[in-house]
């Protein structure tokens, strides 16, 4: 590649990534050369500024024609922008959370490392959302994964944190191997790593033996990616890792890493297989024919997540299962293709709502577990007395997670359920499982509320809410309620700026 081609690319499309990369490098240099007594906590604000700038730049890039650079390996289409908005916004909230994070044994020595590793992980997630090629997808995936492994073990002197990191690495290795093996099939069949070319080739394949190999690739990539979104059958790492990892990292894994996982599912599994023929006649597309497998995984995931959550006493483990269940709900939307016409809107809205409600909930969890010195849910007993505001906002988040009307979570669930019954043929079983397991989820979400409102106070003293956390809480609470009452704000935003995401499939 000569200089001329290099310069001819529209690098502006990558500006948000460059900003994040630059900030990460700057942070690592600062961390390296700053004097020991320099309080690295304030580096969070620098990181936040970087994310903020990237967000603004991204908004500026919105509404352009699709830009594709570096031989179609990186593309900025409406899908990429929409998902990166969620990723950046969520990361901004997490970094503010992390600023206030104070584990019992302290973490001053590694606080600096935390921020740039965090930005590296975010960079990986953003690259995943924007990839047009298996290679870039994989690089993004690994950048996200490896940074996350280290982040999970950030509390070096804490045994559980070490265990979490170790388990995460081992399981992550397995999942990566499976994904990569699946990708190798696709490459072997099509002779290209470029998704656009691959898709164009697959459309014309009517040989059932080839289609069988498509199937192998599909399932291997799918199972590998279920690791990232923590759904069945690769969900079992989640409780152990969520419990051991520092709380901001847990929040990151449950929201941002999961969103990136869904972005990748869209890029590979939906993008390639939605048009590929599923039989020798071409009467069905591959995805139509094999929807039932996705539906099956979604059903199992919802059942496992919700039922196992019932028995948890540790709040972070409970939320691990809750986040497994939530991944199941989103998978329902993926499996039913969001009711056909709303392939992206439904999932995007749910993930956005999930950012608000889950990050909000984790902020309260971080604060309360630190102050109560226990991660048992009894630490929430009498929270209403200790801090009425904290109890009130956590209730909003829990109600939203449970899907009670008036919250963004309800609208998200309603969209998914309506989508799954209006699509032809309707997925009634899946919709019933979703409703049934939602009822089960009331038990544990309301269990926490019972603790907060109806139990005598555990642990002494009022809880002082740090300024950063209170900003996160206010933003999340407003978002949860606003999009619950006026969801059209979000949908209008999508329609105005992204149309119907038609450029996702543009060949």
């Amino acid at each position, binding site marked *: 590649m000569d200089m001329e081609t290099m310069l001819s690319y529209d690098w502006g499309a990558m500006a948000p990534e460059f900003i994040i990369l630059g900030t990460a490098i700057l942070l690592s240099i600062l961390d390296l050369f700053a004097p020991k007594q320099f309080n690295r906590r304030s580096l969070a604000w620098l990181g936040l500024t970087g994310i903020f700038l990237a967000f603004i730049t991204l908004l500026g890039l919105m509404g352009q024609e699709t830009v594709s650079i570096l031989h179609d390996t990186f593309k900025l289409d409406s899908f990429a922008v929409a998902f990166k908005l969620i990723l950046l916004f969520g990361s901004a909230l997490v970094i503010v959370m992390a600023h206030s994070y104070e584990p019992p044994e302290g973490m001053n020595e590694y606080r600096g490392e935390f921020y740039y590793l965090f930005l590296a992980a975010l960079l990986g997630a953003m690259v995943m959302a924007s990839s047009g090629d298996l290679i870039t997808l994989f690089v993004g995936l690994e950048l996200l994964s490896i940074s996350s492994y280290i982040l999970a073990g950030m509390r070096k002197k804490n045994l559980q944190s070490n265990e979490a990191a*170790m388990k995460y690495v081992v399981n992550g290795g397995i999942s990566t191997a499976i994904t990569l093996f699946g990708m190798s099939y696709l490459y072997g069949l099509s002779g290209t790593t470029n998704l656009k070319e691959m898709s164009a080739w697959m459309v014309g394949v009517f040989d*059932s*033996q080839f289609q069988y190999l498509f199937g192998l690739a599909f399932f291997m990539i799918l199972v590998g990616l279920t690791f990232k979104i923590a759904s069945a059958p690769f969900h*079992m790492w989640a409780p152990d890792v969520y419990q051991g990892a520092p709380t901001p990292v847990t929040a990151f894994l449950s929201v941002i890493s999961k969103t990136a996982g869904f972005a990748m599912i869209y890029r590979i599994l939906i993008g390639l297989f939605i048009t590929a023929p599923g039989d020798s006649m071409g009467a069905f597309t591959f995805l139509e024919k094999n929807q039932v497998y996705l539906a099956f995984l979604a059903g199992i995931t919802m059942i496992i997540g919700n039922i196992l959550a019932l028995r948890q006493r540790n709040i972070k483990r409970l939320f691990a299962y809750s986040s497994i269940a939530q991944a199941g709900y989103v998978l329902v939307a993926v499996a039913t293709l969001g009711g056909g016409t709303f392939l992206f809107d439904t999932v995007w809205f749910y993930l956005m709502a999930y950012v608000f409600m889950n990050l909000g909930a984790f902020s309260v969890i971080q604060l309360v577990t630190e102050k109560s010195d226990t991660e048992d849910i009894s630490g929430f007993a009498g929270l209403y007395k200790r801090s009425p505001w904290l109890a009130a906002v956590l209730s909003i988040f829990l109600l939203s997670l449970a899907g009670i009307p008036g919250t963004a979570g309800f609208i998200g669930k309603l969209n998914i359920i309506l989508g799954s019954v209006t699509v032809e043929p309707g997925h009634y079983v899946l*919709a019933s499982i979703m409703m049934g397991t939602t009822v089960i989820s*009331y*038990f544990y979400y309301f269990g926490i509320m019972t603790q907060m409102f*109806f139990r005598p106070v555990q642990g002494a003293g009022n809880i002082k809410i740090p300024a950063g956390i209170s900003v996160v809480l206010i933003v999340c609470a407003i978002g949860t309620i606003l999009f619950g009452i006026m969801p*059209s704000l979000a949908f209008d935003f999508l329609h105005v700026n992204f149309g119907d995401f038609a450029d996702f499939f543009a060949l």
Partner: protein
Amino acid sequence: MMESAWLIPLFPLASFLFLLLFGSRLKEAASAWVGMFFTFASFVWSVFVLFDRLQSPTYKAEAGWLAIGDVQLTAGIEINQLNALMLMIVSLISFLVHMYSKGYMHGDARLPVFYAYLGFFTFAMLGLVMAPNLLQLYFFWELVGLGSFLLIGFYFYKDEAKRAAKKAFIMTRIGDVGLLVGMILLFWQVGSFEYDEIFQAVQAGAISAEIITLTAILIFIGAIGKSGQFPLHTWLPDAMEGPTPVSALIHAATMVAAGVYLVAAMFPLFTASETALTIVAVTGGFTAIFAASIGLVQKDIKRVLAYSTVSQLGYMMLALGSAGYAAGIFHLMTHAFFKALLFLAAGSVIHAVHTQDIEEMGGLWKKMKITGPLFLIGTLAISGVPLFSGFFSKDEILVAAWQHGNQGLFWLALIAAFFTAFYMFRLFFMVFTGDSRKTETNVRESPATMTLPMIVLGVLAIISGYANTHWFGTFLGDWLVEGNEYLAHVHSEAPGWIMLAATAVSAAGILLAYFIYSKRAISRSWMGGENSTVYIALYNKYFIDETYQFSFVALTRWISLFLSYIDRFIVGGLVNAVTGTVQSLGRVGSRLQNGQTQLYGTIAFLGLAVLVVIFALTGRYFG
């Protein structure tokens, strides 16, 4: 006036927000005044709206709320006859309960919180009864449930209250799932949540008969949960752990009537399916007698009233299931007044004697000169004594059941009316006549803030029946169906003997109660003495009681015991079986989660293998 009806629920919402934010800084009395002021504003507005609706046609305003593709969901308000009437009932009773609570809850440190919750509940309930579509109704339906949860659990330091709150929430949620599924099925069929569009589709025959029946039944399941119908009724008696004003507001007059309201609002859907109507009628009729028979043996004053509420709601369902639209709503209205009165009067008694056990009460007639007569008015009304409101509305229901051809249910309802008269007067005699059985010396009449709302309700418990009588005119019934193309008002003469029969059974019930409980009350006071001769003399007296017991009461007692066993073991057993299964699944699952990371990988591999094998075998890729 109707254009501004949307303000009505906003007043209590303002009260809720105000008290939530500034309540802790207010004095006790101030927060009560805030709550009363806002609900009174709601009430005045509702009265204006009701009068406006009497003269002008149905008002409906809507705005787009959410558009997904070409599906347009709307939000707005609708003031039809039913909604206008419900607005008035809900806001009036809410206001009276606000006022009553000022006296009843006096001295409670969390009074502002209490008033805030009351405001929240009132907001949700008022929003519910003016919704123009199912989705909006569902929205408020859930908020009402949340308000009820908070209020039942208000005494959260009591274990029973905590349990009752959770039970109420989850039991009604089970019903809500039915409603949600029914709603979504209708949406799938009609493409809209709007009542009007659904009814038009039903009329036009755009929906198959099976789907109509199915959705009607699913929606009725939602109503069963909220209105405490068999088999989802068990939460309602437990909900009596909440403060008594809450029981009067939520568990007598408003929220539990929401199920009846839902069936009434969806009535054209139900009338389109004879099966669905029959299910509503049978459930209602069975619940009416089932709960009434349990009411015969309860000893807690509020529980007796709770079972009677369940039973009366069963009556309303029976009326609706017998195509007696006006009869059901008429009874909803009269019941709201006299049952709220009974609960408030019961609260006044509890306030005075500090117990809920009727065995420990007695002789309060002389000491509570206002509460006593008011309680009697409520008792006469619910027993169906002529000239009181309950008489007229119950009569309408019996006529509806008879005319619809539900003769079996008609007789059940008549027996239930007998039971009702009996246990209500048992309650009255044990509480107010005879001598005090407990040495609570300092019994005083309640303060004016408590008696005044009761007096208002007492007046209404008498006169509200005259809104719809066969003697002076069926104003309410005519008005309710006026201009409604989906409802035809059946204007046929009722057989006169039904009214006589109803009067006869209630008189029989009252007399029986008088013989048993008035006498036993006397005997008990003598038994309390140490003198053994008197004791032996009394033993014979008691023997008469025993005869009654063995002849009349024993049978019903056995039936009610049998029914409560069914309730406890079969219904409860089913519930336990479901939760048990879920829990043991959880146990198995947790055992798998043993922390061994090898296992996690294995499970993932197994999952992959299973998927690929099934794919390969079912896909016919080989051979």
